[in-house]
């Protein structure tokens, strides 16, 4: 019975995430269009809402091209892993009180662990496709993901110190009284935002797929549905990152200064989605404003700016927490 229920959850989650990604792609296009004095897609469906659907249909019906010298198994596995990892990250994220698939008592660690496994798919894609652009993109990506993992985790440690738990649901519950952790941890929040943008390969950190130099980076050789998986994965990852931000720093589904137990659960869902989408809008805004970093600048920024600040943040938080306790 549990197995069937679990499968049902997964199917529901998958369809929800897929719909979210469709909306996100549409939103990305609209936001970029507004920023650039354009109108954006407006032909397919009402207000162009079906544009992404049309694109997905196009991608599904397209031919799957494989470079004859590519490594068949790895080439095939890479897009699957790319999608599975961030998708599985959703399991622990609570959308509303008692709404979420599974609450692990170390949920945050689980999400970060899955996020790290993304790097495998990128390296596989780059190595398997036997293309130099793809290989360079993959190597960049490996270096970038590994080095941004550290500030990413370090910057949220402050939150865990304050909360004293790793369970997502409990962390949200602790922010009940309108004291979001972004107030306690402003520096941590900014660092997390930057590191998460880098983790999700979004501009200005989109070096693995820097189109002006590497054509399309690690997925240069991919086409059709396999390409769509990478596409899906990128936005899912963004969704996970922004959900994490909402849960850890912005109070999850909670509305500040209101008795949340009186509010029906569906409003909580909307509040959660609103917060997530605000963060996603911020990321899109970044993408369409900033130039791309160079690979060594990226490394320097990660190790010399982000990490020291994250450590300082952690030490100060720890000291203050200790002082308050004593």
């Amino acid at each position, binding site marked *: 019975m549990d197995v069937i229920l679990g499968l049902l959850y997964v199917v529901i989650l998958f369809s929800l995430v897929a719909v979210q990604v469709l909306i996100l792609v549409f939103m990305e296009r609209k936001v970029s269009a507004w920023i650039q004095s354009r109108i954006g897609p407006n032909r397919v469906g009402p207000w162009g809402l079906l544009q992404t659907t049309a694109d997905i249909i196009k991608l599904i019906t397209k031919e799957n091209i494989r470079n004859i010298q590519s490594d068949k198994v790895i080439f095939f596995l890479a897009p699957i892993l790319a999608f599975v990892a961030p998708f599985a990250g959703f399991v622990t994220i609570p959308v509303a009180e008692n709404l979420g698939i599974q609450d692990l008592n170390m949920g945050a660690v689980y999400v970060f662990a899955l996020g790290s496994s993304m790097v495998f798919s990128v390296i596989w894609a780059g190595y398997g496709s036997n293309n130099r652009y793809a290989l360079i993109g993959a190597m960049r990506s490996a270096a970038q993901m590994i080095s941004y993992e550290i500030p990413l985790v370090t910057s949220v440690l402050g939150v865990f110190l304050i909360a004293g738990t790793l369970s997502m649901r409990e962390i949200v519950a602790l922010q009940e009284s309108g004291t979001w952790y972004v107030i306690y941890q402003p520096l941590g929040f900014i660092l997390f935002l930057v590191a998460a943008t880098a983790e999700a390969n979004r501009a200005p950190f*989109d070096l693995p797929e820097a189109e002006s130099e590497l054509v399309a980076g690690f997925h240069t050789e991919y086409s059709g549905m396999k390409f769509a998986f990478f596409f899906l994965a990128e936005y899912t990852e963004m969704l996970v990152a922004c959900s994490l931000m909402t849960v850890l720093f912005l109070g999850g589904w909670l509305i500040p200064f209101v008795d949340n137990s009186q509010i029906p659960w569906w409003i909580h869902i909307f509040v959660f989605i609103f917060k997530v989408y605000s963060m996603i809008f911020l990321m899109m805004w970044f993408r369409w404003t900033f130039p791309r970093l160079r690979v060594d600048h990226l490394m320097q920024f990660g190790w010399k700016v982000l990490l020291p600040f994250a450590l300082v943040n952690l030490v100060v938080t720890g000291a203050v927490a200790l002082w308050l306790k004593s």
Partner: protein
Amino acid sequence: MSEQLTHSASKKAFRKDIPLIDQIPPRKKHILRGLPESELHVEEFLMNIGPQHPSTHGVLRLVVSMEGEVVKSCEPDLGYLHRTFEKISENRTYQQIVPFTDRMDYLGSMNANWGVAAAVEKLASIEVPERAEYIRVIVAELNRIASHLMWMGAFAADIGALTGFVYGFREREMILDMFEEICGSRLTYGYIRVGGVAEDVTPKFIQMVNDFLKILPDRVTDYHDLITGNVIFIERTRGIGAITLDEAISYDITGPMLRACGLPWDLRKEEPYSLYSKFDFNIPAYFNGDCYDRFRVRMDEIMEAAKIVRQALDGLPEGDYKVKKLARNIKPPVGDVYIRQEAPRGEYGVYMESDGSIKPNRVKYRTPSFTNLSILPLAARGWKIADLIAILGSVDIVLGDVDR
């Protein structure tokens, strides 16, 4: 910005005392030639960039030898857009040559037309009416603005800021509308003809230019806020692909690239052709010769060109817009002529040799893109592949201009 020589700051008019070649500031001799070499042994591999690549600005092919991310050598492979315009020009009458030059430098067609028209006029001793010259200056400078705006967008896109690309195009579109108003085309104008211009300017055109000049300073400020001041952009361009003035002179670099190396050499000032001696404008110049300085020179030139347009528009005299009686087939006397003009990309020269018949014996287009591109292998050596793209973008090539 002490190193900035242009604008109000320096009344010294550096152009009067051009730094002599042996008096280059000493710091110029120590430029950063690429990134420090790594001690790791990395295997070199060849990478093929282009002819189909998002940022080769056309059909340029680069064969790049790389060590990891670092460019060890880079060999441009030209000729994908070679349309034998020099041979074609030898088989056309003097008036028929003009439309072909649009296709060479398709972002600065007005300047390309002007070079040929001026060469034929000098060869056949044709006196051009003053109004025609004024109109030529106006459209050429507008085209310079359009070209630089387009370049700014493309360069920003090379660096990764795609929004700058669209902003550049948005303002360029206004200039294209003006050109459509006066000559009916948006890209290949063929407007500056032998003996004047094709048609007179209209009051609507003047109104459009006035409107454009009104909004331009605001928009340029926006570009500076969005791109020039951006810390990531500065990191990506400052010091990147720097060349010394000696190297620039050895490789015959002209135009904004030369002025970014510290020599404020502009033919509009040094050998004023047409009416340029009448107008008051500065020659922007910076000292470092890197991508950032090239960017700043071009951004400053937009404002200077706008100044010239303003003055020319105010001084536009009445009169004919072209020579009234011009033979259908011009037969210049035997001789040759070499005309040099300051096109948006640099020095645009037309060498024309007449043998007394209705067709020239030899037409040579000395195009700035070709000579400026020749320094790419030197400038890109030792930098990363992302820098190679930035340096290539900062050269401002038009492949139609390179291959002709």
